[in-house]
């Protein structure tokens, strides 16, 4: 199983798509590691810098609804993973992106809008960090001397994939 949690990158917009996470022009790379410099290159958000310190340090992305919509490219979770990000917390995900996350043994955590709003209230804290406890299905955000914990749902199958380290290992042993 991968490790989950750490400094947070806040991406405050709905419908962030796969082309923004990793543009198609880089899909000609044939190793995951080669994708690393291009993370979120085409995403335009106020105050966001794809090559900035916050992006570089992040282990967790917190965002809004329908994250990862568009293409089926697994390059999207891969480019996050090779940059050290193994958790995305969102109000909702596009189906293929979400499945790709679990298939790679990464955590796609869905929380209701009210919880996402509460987590975004930590956006101003330079030390904002999230820790994830898969066993109890709880997420804790800390920053600026405050701390808040949220319970989340994760389908048992998705959790099994995360625990197994991904779908290939899971399926290979079973089918």
């Amino acid at each position, binding site marked *: 199983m991968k490790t989950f949690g750490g400094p947070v990158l806040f991406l405050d917009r709905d419908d962030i798509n796969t082309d923004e996470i990793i*543009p198609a022009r880089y899909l*000609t790379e*044939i190793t995951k590691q080669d994708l690393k410099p291009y993370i979120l290159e085409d995403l335009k958000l106020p105050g966001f810098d794809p090559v900035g310190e916050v992006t570089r340090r992040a282990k967790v992305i917190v965002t809004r609804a329908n994250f990862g919509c568009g*293409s*089926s490219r697994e390059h999207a*979770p891969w480019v996050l993973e090779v940059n050290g990000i193994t958790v995305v917390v969102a109000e909702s995900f596009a189906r293929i992106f979400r499945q790709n996350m679990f298939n790679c043994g990464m955590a796609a955590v869905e929380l209701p809008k009210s919880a996402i709003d509460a987590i975004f209230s930590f956006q101003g804290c330079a030390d904002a960090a999230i820790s994830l406890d898969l066993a109890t299905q709880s997420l804790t955000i800390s920053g600026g001397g405050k701390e808040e914990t949220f319970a989340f749902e994760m389908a048992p199958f998705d959790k099994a994939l995360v625990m197994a380290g991904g779908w*290939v290992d899971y399926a*290979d042993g079973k089918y």
Partner: protein
Amino acid sequence: MGMTTAEKIFAGHLVDEPFPGAKVLRLDVVMCHEITTPIAIADLVSRGKDRVFDTAKIKAVIDHVTPSKDSKTATQAKILRDWARRHKIPDFFDVGANGVCHALFPEKGFIRPGYTIIMGDSHTCTHGAFGAFAAGVGTTDLEVGILKGVCAFRAPETIRINLNGTLPRGVYAKDVILYIIGQLGVNGATDRVMEFRGPVVDAMSMESRMTLTNMAIEAGGTSGICMPDRVTVDYLWPFIQGDFPSKEAAVGEYRKWWSDEDAAYDKVYDFDLSGLEPMVTFGYKPDQVRTVTEMAGTPIDQVYLGSCTNGRLEDLRIAAEMLKGRKIAPTVRAILSPATPKIFQHALKEGLIEIFMEAGFCVTNPTCGACLGMSTGVLAEGEVCAATTNRNFQGRMGKGGMVHLLSPASSAAAAIEGRIADPRKYLP
């Protein structure tokens, strides 16, 4: 309680349900292209499991960047080609025989009602036009599909979309699906199958139905689905005539895949399309849709006619009819990419290619190329393209470029005027 088409297909293909709601399905077709498959192949090789579950059920094509534009894309093509040869995959389509996957594979007769289909490509939902369950997946799902012939999905909930009325002149399947996405939103069908029903669908050709189902993913849908009927059988007849004594018999047999009248739907939409107008997107999301009338006059730099959405013969015929005897505006460049070699050949024989070239179009070989900004028509920073493709994300056709999605007819009108324009005034 009756079942939907998707539920029937799931029930007939269920291999395992490891947890409630997680359905592992047996796959009838696993499709592969050179962008998302090479990493799956590499992983299988590194695991010492370089095998395929059934060579006859795997279909492979080099289509996204072809012929290869540089060393990297040549390497991707080579990985797929070497793999297909190594495993003696009979249905592998290389340069000269290759075309855009979601146009090529139906044309080859690989799809049947009731099938389960996956591909490492989000527009795989296209194949649901035949009454199949077809879903785009990532590389890992593809890898397991190649190795084991299975894929996991959540239990399918279906949204039924009744398309009532008759389409007015100058309004096509593309306008319909843009309108639907505008109504549902880019997140409106996430984790849902979109079932297209009603007289408008009944009257559509398979080409038009594929345009509808192709863009289900743009509303978040897992698969689009149309009911298999006489139109489906007519299209498939060259491939299925040995299986049935008559077309009527085939229509009767395929009827079993229709959703039952008492099936349960997550949601039902009723749209009367008799007053629908030509539609076009205005922003960077496919649900940002307006009428062409509202957008008329918007300047453009390039017109692109092609892709898995609208690069089929019917699309070329519609645009050619309008372009006959006309020239494109001097301020635009226009690119036509017929989606398959067969479409290209038909278009040549019918004189369509001559019409396009006389009008000033550049005609490229079949490829996905420009649609995702990879080759043969990439935009420069700040440029605008009127495209018959499926995705208008920022930078989709080139960094800093903008895309307006529209129908083949509206693309022809845009080419003639050099700006978004009403296609109805150019119809013969």
